[in-house]
């Protein structure tokens, strides 16, 4: 379109492989699964059942079925005996609460129907910015996990809490008497009331100690902050205040330091008055943040450390000890831009090294960065690696009398897991608090089953001065007890935790303000009295020389977390397992990311098989003596040469349903980042569930659209965002004038449009999970995904492109050099990434509607393309005729079918279903409805309140979940609505506009500040 860039979705496509050609021409790559119900060919041939017999059976069963159908089932309706006042059956209630599981922290608004939480929405009026990520959105399903612990256990036998407490207290007393340590090993709780309880526990048992442990540690950053400012915390960042952002290995749009930065980041990514932020990323594997960067440079983990010091030197002009890196030119350029930004600049790093974090803080100090907040610090990563290591040593030395574990699964997540387990054996009392059986609960004496956060009371302070309340939204499903209630019992405090929490808040936090208001809002903000913090001086020379000693290896290891599973706590959640990774577009797996160059050198391959599915080689990975066997290899464009990367959170087995036991456990390598990797190819091949080659748009290339900031400012709209032109009577005319169709009257009443801004869409996939939850989208499992039968109504396409054009080569003066040749031959080594969420485009001239033989899909006046499932006979003509590949066919019955043993196959898991949306049955087509149940509910609400619909009142599940505001939804016939104003925006385009479908989904093109 505007640029002459070539976009591709996979290396295979880039190389014009014949399979891609074939795939782009086939509708459904797999054959119709007749085998599944007819049996295989051999059985069919040898079967004694002849065709005539078959017809007889069919005849009989039809007759039998219709006879059975005459008698309708008797349906019971059982009302409440005493209806709670605030519940009206059929009307949803919303409760503000907070999620805090030690890894994900968020202020949420929970939608509750008849006492069942069914959907997590972001609490948009909260005082701290953490939005709802894919995992937060999916957490409601973890509540209905069939594998949860249903009662307390003592040596794997059920025990009631009275006996549990009696035995634990007697042992605690003995331990206390012997003056051995009682250690609480917990994840970051950031809970003021729990901290108070632990302090009270220490009064009763003076040997008590609290060790905070984060599975995915940010200990280095906290250490650095502690070294300078004396307290253990993390600086907060406001990326909206930065015009230049340089990140060295920090995935701040992902899980870096607890996340929650995407809103501030996105605020400055749309050009306003010709200005937007510039984002430069140096990293090893392609992260979500790297994918969003204006410029991305691949560096090994060891080189990142040198780069950071080099950046410091370039900014301050000092000469701290360092080494050269391949990207020093880019570092120098970045330093100039950082300095020029005049305080509106920030540098962040994800290197897990105290020295590196110290230098990063020094850089921000030197830049006088306005984006760093050192006062209102973040509380959600408090883990201390040194103390954890010390604990393991002491346990093995026999100095620890009791270990009480909460919100942590150290046996699974510790690199020193074996030593930890050995140490546990030497401890007199071991207690674990857990929601599901874990690797840790297997190794301890006492297990206290804890409730899900949606069943609990609690509080959390995400940043200093902001407080959130957690309240139960459902009665406890099982015989569970909170950690805090146990502490109260063990300290002999007879008050309930609710009263304790209320008292703590009233005296320490609210100080006279209303408890009920705070509970209603879910959050409360206290003005921070401190405005500055005084730094201690730190010798950067020591830090830099420590960094300079880092050894560079030929093949280095990087460890990362994925958007789907994170640290692996929610690995038994089918929504998260099925969620395609935004970068690799692969679900149900983790894999070793390898660069193209290394793969070629080691003879590792990925290949696409005939049905469009991706297969790959398997390797054994050894780092510093630790080996992980049979790891699949995934060749990742943009991966730094000489590095491999593996995601955490997979490979769990305890408390996991068989289907969810996917991937390999990378935690044994978690402390070996940058370590020397040896990989050995082993026999066999791995089958990926990768959706990247599926649903191709039939070779139509002009799909994603982007421009550079320079073009956006200097050129006319027609040049960087031209609308398609057609020839009519030898004149060039626009799409509107060449319409073959009769115009649909869309001027009356609400007419919905969905707008997606590609400049602020980070690809975080929260919308995908929100859509799952809202619309009862089924989970189909790995096998089905492999054959293109995923059911996601909303997919986020990821496109790669190369920035190396001839012009750019000339500009950089590398044309003719080997570097230019390399960039031209292997554009996948340094790709740029574009994300594009695609759902049903709700065409005003929909190709699907005209081909349906039974009129099951039709157009509504409100702009929604409607799908009547009960009318659909499953011809799939509509999917065949859809240029956007957004229609999904129910190849099987996904609910109440043991072949698909996910949440819809058990009574508990089905409690999450939205009662306003039908569960589709086998043989019907489904697709995005533009959340018609939500728009209808909004209209009904207005009608009942006798008023027109307010501006901004219409919402869909995806727009509600979008933290950056990239998605907006509304009525285009109301001029006040954002989507109405965006119709004629210079950046607005429509997907495949030249096809003439007149979509009701509009996109704003991405602007790259290159």
């Amino acid at each position: 379109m505007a640029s002459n860039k070539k976009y591709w979705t996979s290396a295979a496509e880039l190389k014009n492989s014949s399979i891609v050609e074939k795939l782009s021409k086939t509708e459904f790559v797999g054959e119709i699964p007749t085998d599944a119900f007819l049996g295989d060919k051999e059985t069919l041939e040898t079967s004694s059942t002849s065709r005539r017999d078959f017809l007889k059976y069919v005849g009989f069963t039809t007759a039998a079925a219709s006879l059975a159908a005459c008698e309708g089932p008797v349906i019971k309706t059982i009302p409440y005996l005493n209806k709670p006042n605030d519940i009206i059956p059929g009307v949803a209630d919303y409760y503000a609460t907070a999620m805090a599981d030690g890894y994900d922290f968020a202020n949420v608004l929970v939608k509750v129907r008849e006492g069942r939480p069914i959907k997590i929405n972001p609490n948009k009026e909260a005082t701290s910015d953490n939005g709802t990520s894919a995992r937060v959105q999916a957490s409601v399903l973890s509540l209905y996990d069939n594998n949860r612990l249903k009662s307390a256990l003592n040596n794997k036998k059920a025990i009631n809490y009275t006996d549990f407490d009696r035995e634990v207290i007697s042992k605690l007393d003995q331990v206390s008497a012997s003056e051995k340590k009682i250690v609480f090993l917990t994840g970051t709780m950031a809970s003021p009331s729990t901290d108070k309880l632990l302090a009270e526990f220490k009064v009763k048992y003076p040997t008590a100690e609290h060790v905070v442990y984060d599975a995915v540690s940010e200990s280095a950053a906290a250490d650095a902050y502690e070294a300078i400012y004396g307290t253990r915390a993390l600086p907060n960042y406001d990326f909206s205040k930065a015009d230049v952002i340089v990140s060295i290995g920090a995935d701040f749009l992902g899980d870096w330091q607890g996340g929650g930065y995407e809103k501030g980041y996105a605020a400055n990514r749309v050009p306003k008055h010709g200005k937007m932020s510039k984002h430069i990323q140096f990293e090893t594997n392609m992260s979500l943040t790297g994918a969003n960067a204006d410029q991305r440079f691949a560096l090994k983990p060891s080189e990142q450390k040198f780069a950071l010091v080099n950046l410091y030197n370039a900014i301050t002009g000092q000469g701290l000890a360092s080494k050269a890196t391949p990207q020093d030119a880019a570092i120098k350029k970045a330093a100039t831009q950082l300095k020029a930004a005049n305080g509106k600049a920030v540098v962040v790093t994800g290197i897990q090294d105290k020295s590196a974090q110290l230098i990063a803080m020094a850089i921000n100090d030197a830049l006088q960065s306005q984006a760093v907040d050192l006062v209102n610090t973040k509380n959600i990563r408090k883990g201390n690696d040194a103390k954890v290591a010390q604990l393991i040593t002491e346990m093995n030395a026999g100095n620890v009398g009791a270990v009480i574990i909460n919100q942590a699964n150290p046996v699974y997540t510790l690199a020193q897991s074996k030593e930890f387990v050995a140490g546990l054996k030497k401890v007199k009392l071991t207690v674990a608090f857990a929601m599901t059986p874990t690797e840790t609960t297997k190794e301890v004496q006492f297990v206290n089953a804890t409730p899900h956060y949606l069943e609990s009371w609690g509080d959390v302070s995400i940043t200093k001065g902001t407080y959130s309340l957690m309240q139960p939204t459902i009665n406890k499903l099982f015989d569970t007890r909170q950690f805090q209630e146990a502490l109260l019992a063990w300290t002999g405090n007879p008050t309930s935790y609710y009263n304790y929490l209320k008292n703590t808040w009233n005296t320490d936090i609210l100080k006279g303000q209303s408890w009920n208001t705070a509970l209603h809002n879910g959050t409360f903000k206290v003005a921070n009295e401190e405005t500055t913090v005084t730094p201690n001086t730190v010798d950067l020379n020591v830090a830099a020389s420590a960094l300079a000693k880092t050894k560079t290896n030929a093949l280095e290891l990087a460890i990362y977390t994925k958007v789907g599973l994170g640290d692996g706590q929610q690995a038994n959640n089918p929504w998260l397992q099925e969620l395609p990774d935004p970068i690799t577009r692969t679900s149900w797996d983790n894999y070793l990311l390898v660069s193209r160059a290394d793969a070629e050198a080691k003879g590792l391959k990925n290949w696409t098989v005939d049905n469009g599915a991706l297969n790959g080689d398997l390797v054994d990975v050894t780092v510093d003596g630790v080996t992980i066997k049979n790891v699949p290899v995934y060749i990742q464009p943009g991966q730094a040469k000489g590095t491999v990367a593996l995601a955490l959170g997979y490979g769990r087995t305890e408390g996991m349903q068989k289907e969810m036991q996917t991937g390999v456990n990378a935690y044994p390598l978690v402390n070996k980042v940058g370590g020397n990797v040896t990989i050995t190819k082993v026999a066999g091949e791995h089958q990926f569930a990768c959706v990247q080659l599926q649903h191709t748009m039939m070779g139509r290339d002009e799909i994603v659209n982007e421009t550079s900031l320079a073009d956006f400012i200097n050129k006319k709209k027609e040049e960087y965002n031209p609308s398609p032109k057609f020839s009519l009577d030898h004149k060039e005319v626009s799409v509107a004038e060449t319409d073959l169709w009769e115009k649909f009257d869309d001027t009356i009443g609400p007419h919905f449009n969905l707008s997606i801004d590609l400049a602020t869409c980070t690809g975080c996939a929260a919308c995908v999970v929100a859509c799952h939850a809202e619309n009862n989208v089924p989970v189909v499992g790995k096998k089905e995904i492999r054959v293109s039968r995923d059911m996601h109504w909303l997919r986020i396409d990821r496109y790669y492109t190369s920035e190396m054009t001839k012009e750019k080569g000339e500009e950089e003066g590398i044309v003719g050099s080997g570097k230019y040749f390399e960039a031209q031959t292997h554009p996948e080594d340094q790709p740029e990434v574009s994300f594009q969420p695609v759902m049903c485009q709700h065409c005003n001239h929909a190709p699907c509607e005209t081909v349906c033989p039974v009129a099951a899909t039709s157009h509504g006046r409100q702009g929604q393309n409607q799908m009547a499932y009960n009318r659909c006979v499953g011809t799939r003509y509509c999917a065949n005729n859809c240029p956007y590949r957004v229609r999904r066919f129910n190849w099987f019955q996904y609910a109440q079918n043991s072949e698909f043993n996910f949440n819809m196959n058990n009574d508990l898991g089905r409690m999450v279903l939205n009662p306003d949306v039908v569960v589709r049955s086998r043989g019907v087509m489904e697709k995005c409805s533009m959340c018609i149940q939500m728009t209808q509910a909004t209209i009904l609400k207005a009608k009942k309140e006798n008023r027109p619909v307010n501006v901004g009142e219409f919402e869909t599940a995806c727009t509600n979940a979008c933290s950056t505001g990239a998605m907006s939804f509304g009525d285009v016939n109301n001029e006040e609505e954002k989507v109405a104003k965006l119709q004629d925006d210079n950046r607005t385009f429509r997907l495949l506009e030249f096809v003439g479908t007149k979509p009701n989904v509009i996109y704003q093109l991405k602007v790259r500040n290159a």
Partner: protein
Amino acid sequence: MKIVNQHSPIQQLTKLTFVLLFIFSTSLFAQQGDAANGKKLFKANCAACHKLDKKVLGPPLKGVSEKRDRKWLYSWIKNSAEFIKSGDADAKAIFEEFKIPMTPFPQLSNKDIDDILAYTDDKPAKKAASGAGASTKVDPKVKLGKKLFKANCAACHKMEGKLVGPGLKGVTERREKEWLHAWIKDNNALRKSGDAIAKQVFEENGKMPMTPFPQLSDDDIDALLAYFKVGDVKKVVKNTAGVNTTKKEKKSSGAWMNWVVILVILGLLIWMFLSKVTFLKIIATVFLLLVGAYFTFDWLMGIGVDQGYQPIQPIAFSHKIHAGDNKIDCQYCHSSAKHSKTSGVPTANVCMNCHKSISEVADDTRVGALGKEQLDKEIQKIYNAVGWDSDNMKYKENYKPIPIKWIRVHNLPDFAYYNHSQHVTVAGIKCQKCHGPVEKMDEMKQHSPLTMRWCLDCHKATDVNLDNKYYAKIHKQLSEKYGVEKVTIAQLGGKECGKCHY
């Protein structure tokens, strides 16, 4: 040469068609009439001069079709004067007997007359135990007393058994007349005056002062006391065989005609199959197939349509008593209807709002075959569900409640979305429009077919409620577009698939 006199197939076909047409038309007419319609017609046309079982101006009409030939009746009713003139002996005889010519009714079709005859053939329902209570004479004073009791006392007192206050039957025997007068008029003053009995009554009844009734005159109180003395006159209801609803045999002159027609058709078909003419066999087969297809299709279309579904509920709850006789608003119990998609089966606490003080039904209450004895047990079922101790007027402690498992009468399929509040609150539709005369139903019954056509027929015919401000703009635009003054729901979009199916 042998000459075979053979009808051409075409001739045969024409004949057959006529035969079939004739059979069909007669069978249609011969069908037994609709008694309900007949009743209407009877009231409009005949009732001025006739009764069913008594002679008025004309003879009683009950069972008239047994006395006379149906054809004779058609002629007589349509124009009796002409008929008499035509010389019919029976007609003349009737004229001689009554001397007044009957008004002719040429406007009535044969079908109408069939309907009327169906009505007149029906035996009028026996009035159950009608005379039983009538014979007992009630003193007007007692009657007045009962009225006053219901208006003033019944909120807290029953005649027998304690409610908030003590049972009042026979109170005149326990207390002096003067004392009662004083007490009723102002019990507080009486107590303050130091009356020992008054104090004792106060203590006995949970120290709750009774509402004073200064507005009651002495006569009123005398009437009340008279009522307290006598109490209700018990009506003895005999459980006669007539009360038990035995299905009445409907005698109909049309019934045998139907059988005749069916037999004729069957005979004809058999004849056709037995005949040697292949063409006839083909026709018969085609006919059988068509008839078969018709019935199969009709049957298939009826699957899942449960109009008239009337399951027996776990509690013999009567909508007639609650919504009909006592005029309780539908939405008092079905309170979700105005807010929610479901109307809400009332929760037991809603029942208890009233049934705390209503633990038994009035003596003559009947629901179907159930009398007072059984119905009181039905009320007890609510108490069992929630754990209410009706003797001590309080909830039992530590009682494990038992949910009431009602049977859903109206079942929409999962794929159809229906919202009560849209229809009740926004459109302002009366419940009866879809649910029928619920206030007349003892056992709830599905009144409407609940099919999609039924929904859409209403959407096409109903205008948008213009009082609602939401519709203001859209209605103006739509009425201009369609050139109509009032826009129907269907024109607004109420016919779109996605409005109900998602």
